[in-house]
């Protein structure tokens, strides 16, 4: 599972998306409040608008950070496919050694112990 901290880039972008949804909801709420027949409640509208602006600011900051860090990474610069193949070969070696060790163990088990 992905770590639940805010540290992964994916988590942050996910948060931005959720915030956009929330901002839309706020806007809808404000509009409905303005449309209410008894007149809008000022504190309600004020608080929502403040939250809206704050969220927009957060979204902007986060997106800016992410875009900056994304641009710093030149894609496919350090391709590790070579190392991956070497790894696969090492994995095969390990499997082989394990089978050999199992055989050793089996052979040793066939002989009665000296204790």
């Amino acid at each position, binding site marked *: *599972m*992905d770590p639940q901290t805010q540290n992964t880039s*994916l988590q942050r972008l*996910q948060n931005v*998306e*959720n915030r*956009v*949804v*929330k901002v*839309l*909801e706020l*806007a*809808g*709420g*404000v*509009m*409905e*409040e*303005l*449309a209410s*027949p008894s007149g809008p409640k000022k504190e309600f509208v004020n608080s929502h608008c403040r939250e809206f602006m704050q969220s927009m600011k957060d979204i902007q900051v986060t997106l800016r950070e992410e875009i900056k860090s994304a641009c710093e990474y030149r*894609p*496919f610069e350090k*391709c590790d*496919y*070579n190392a*991956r*193949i*070497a790894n*696969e*070969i090492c994995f*095969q*070696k390990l*499997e*082989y050694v394990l*089978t*050999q060790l199992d*055989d050793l163990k089996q052979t040793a088990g066939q002989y009665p112990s000296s204790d």
Partner: protein
Amino acid sequence: MDSDMEISLDRLPIKRLESIEENGAERFPSDVGYDDKRVSLIRRIDFAWALEEEDELKKKKQKKSSKDSAEQWKWKGMVENLQLAHQELSVIIDLIDTVQANDAVTVAGMTRPKPLPNEILSDLAVSTATKLQGYRNLGNYFKQSAKALEQKINREARFYGALIRLQRNWKVKRQRMLASNASNEGFTIDLSDSSLHDPTSGFRPSTLSTIRVDHDSAGMLAINVPQDSWYSLRFGFVGLNPIDNTNESDEHLDSTMGHDIPGTSEKQSASDDEYVKETHSLLREVHKSIFAEQVLFDMLNREAFNEGVGFNISGIRENFMEMSIGQGASLFVSLHPSGKNASIKKSESATLLIESSGRIEPAEGDYRLKKLGFPNRASYEIYLQQIFHEHAFGKAKDQPKSKSIRASNQTRKDSNSGLLDHFCLSLTHRIFSNRVLEHLESVVCKVPYLHLISHPTWNSRTSSWTVFMTVPPSIIPQGSSETQSPDGKRNLKMQFRTKVVVKDECISVEAECTPNVVGLLKSSSCNLFAMNKYECGVADLPVIILQQVASQIVCWLLEEARTVGTKASRDFLSLSLEIVEGERVSLVAQVNPEDAKGCISWWLVMENGSTEEREGVSESRKLLGHLSLDVLYSVLMDLINLCGTGRNALVS
């Protein structure tokens, strides 16, 4: 018009002074234009009479209607009102048409009628209501789009989450041009590695190396790689390993990418994980296949056309190569399609069971193969992959340094990197050294006082062993004439080693106390323990080893005898002691590698040497049999006692 025509009189066209200035200049109103005159004339037409008439008509009709109201149609009043309105409207329309035609009358000015307060209020109310309605609609719109966006985010979160997890390990590329069609955002996974391949060699990336990322029915990431389209490398010995059977390791991969729709969200996330893992495994298999196909098999094919010492190509097919190497072995390397639906063909050669230890259990009574000692197929498959990968990788690392200058030279060199040669020679060596080991083992097993030690050489074409013998410690007390080593122990040899080194297919034996007949002519003891190195063949190896060991025993006994002062001499494999003048007793070793009870047996030979009278030397022999070193040592001591009257008496 019933009334009399009235005559209206115009004023006299006297120009009246409009204004007069101080200096006496008089200003007259400007002449009214023709049109303006007409307008003013029309204005003066009084329509009041028409209105009065209408009013009178209305009153008359009302009187009439009130008289006969019972049978009156109740809409009649409205009809009359409408007719009057229609009349007024027609007059006004005529006027407007005239104004529009612009030839009789033009509009001089219009003033807006001042709105009444209730009209103002109602307008305001209407506009406020529309605005409120607009806000409400907007609010609804925002909330709906918030919900829709949330749903979209959740649906796509699975896709992008999986894509990002794959992106950690694989190159994900995007082509936005293709994104306009269907449900594909144009993502692809690129499995090719441009650094591994020489661009001048005309290399084409395989169709496998770009994999499209699609959405499956649940909106989740899906990868469709057709079955049988990727390969795995197979290596084996012809006649030993089946060519076409699937390996056990291929079957654990489940290449079906179907995904069950889970019930709860927890199960969904857990199975998402598994799904990503499965996709990852599939990508790994395809990546390995690309390596096997393009790097390995390609290079193998290129190398095959170079002359190599260690191998001869005996067959090439598509994705299959067979070659014969030394020691009567024959290899094959093939690319074998994997995936669940790979066809399993029965190999035509005899099926043999292969244990994982590399020893072969022959079926059908083919015991000849057991002696060949073929090494384990899997380890050499790995070795083949490794050396080619290292070579390709090293080439890739060198490439950025000198790209264009040495490119042409490199291609020439690369096709002759000699890796296949090296590989085949290694394999040949391994088979050969397995045989050598068998011989050594057969000797060492039978002689109880010998031990065999293997040495790792870290070289695939060199192997080395040591035959190790420990002799029992000497019971002769130390004389004053002997030098002492610093730790107080005697400077006598306790261990004898015989080192056997095999390089490619060449055996060399290195040991001291070699049974060298030539060396005996010098017969000085300082040469006795000299190391000597010589070569031998496989068939002779057991005898050579036994002779070497026997000779070492003889040298040891000789050294022991000499420390006591006995006159002793050595001749090939025999030790002679002089008992009395002319009489010699000898311990002679006899080596026989086929002997099951122990390979070295000892004879006691008595020689009566009356040299003048007889021609030859008569001797009598007694077989002592297989003796352990302790027993041999005590025999020697007894013999020395025999000789030792008058010399250093042994106190045992």
